[in-house]
């Protein structure tokens, strides 16, 4: 088993600009240290219609209500910052914000995994001798000497499709045949309940036991810590 750079294509060139956008990096940085409720705020606001911050503050009394931390509290400051960047993403328009959201989930995953292990890479393929190479790269990989990891990142549960599950399962089986250690999984910025519903319908003949699923509530597991 070995890792390799993805083949460059037009889509990747365009997408690289979004991945490097300061808004993506800022959102990922804020969300890496966020609570589950703050991440839920980001998910809702980045995918909403309203651009009025007051609407979103009303929706999350635990973050902004009378019993929430005060305006000078670091948690409250983070909540306000997350709301601000989320509304900036929402303001990009339907086509662009879809790409921004995907890039944010990837960047967030990279940060969380990097606090636990390394080296962490982006957009890499995994090659096995005697097996045809997969076309699509994995969003985030860990390329350690002793063990590897391959993560595909999705904004929502609806992004879990049969081809995604099959590619991860192929990598897992290829590693097994090479007697290499490889953890494969999906990171989805959505509720685990919705992800499970989707996976059961899309899995086909794939046994899901070998596939890790990290939902919005358990993102901190990527960093090796309990949810905040």
């Amino acid at each position, binding site marked *: 088993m070995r890792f390799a750079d993805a083949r460059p294509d037009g889509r990747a060139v365009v997408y690289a600009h979004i991945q490097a956008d300061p808004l993506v990096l800022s959102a990922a940085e804020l969300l890496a240290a966020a609570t589950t409720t703050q991440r*839920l705020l980001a*998910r*809702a606001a980045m995918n909403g219609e*309203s651009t009025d911050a007051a*609407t979103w503050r*009303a*929706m999350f009394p635990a973050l902004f209500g009378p019993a929430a931390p005060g305006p000078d509290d670091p948690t409250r400051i983070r909540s306000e910052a997350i709301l601000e960047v989320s509304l900036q993403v929402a303001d990009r328009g339907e086509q662009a914000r879809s790409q921004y959201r995907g890039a944010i989930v990837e960047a967030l995953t990279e940060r969380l995994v990097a606090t636990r292990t390394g080296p962490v890479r982006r957009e890499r393929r995994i090659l096995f001798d005697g097996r045809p190479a997969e076309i699509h790269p994995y969003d985030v990989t860990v390329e350690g000497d002793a063990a590897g990891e391959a993560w595909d990142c999705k904004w929502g549960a609806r992004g879990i499709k049969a081809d995604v599950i099959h590619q991860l399962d192929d990598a897992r089986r290829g590693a097994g045949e090479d007697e290499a250690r490889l953890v494969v999984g999906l990171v989805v910025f959505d*509720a685990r309940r*919705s992800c499970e519903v989707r996976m059961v319908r899309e899995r086909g003949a794939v046994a899901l036991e070998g596939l890790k699923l990290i939902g919005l509530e358990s993102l901190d597991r990527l960093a090796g810590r309990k949810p905040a």
Partner: protein
Amino acid sequence: MPPPTVADLVERTLLGFDALAATAEAVADEWQYVTDLGTVWKARIRAVGDARGTEPAPAGAAAAIDAVVAEAGRITDPHRAIDWLSTLPQVALAAVGEPA
């Protein structure tokens, strides 16, 4: 008018969810997924009503659920409505202090 109970908020959430599902059903290829989401999320929300229905709603929860249901009502794109079938219940559950 008496303060709302958790059961009242469960009812409002379910009505909002059904309206959203009606928008989402326009995507024929995702009919099964929309149906599955309805099955699991409505069961989760009803379970909260069964367990805590008579409790007064937590502070801010009624306004939160009115806000999230109103936001869901603004969504006319069926693809985004599918995404919100997962988001709306999470936000509503958080408002009443429940995990997803």
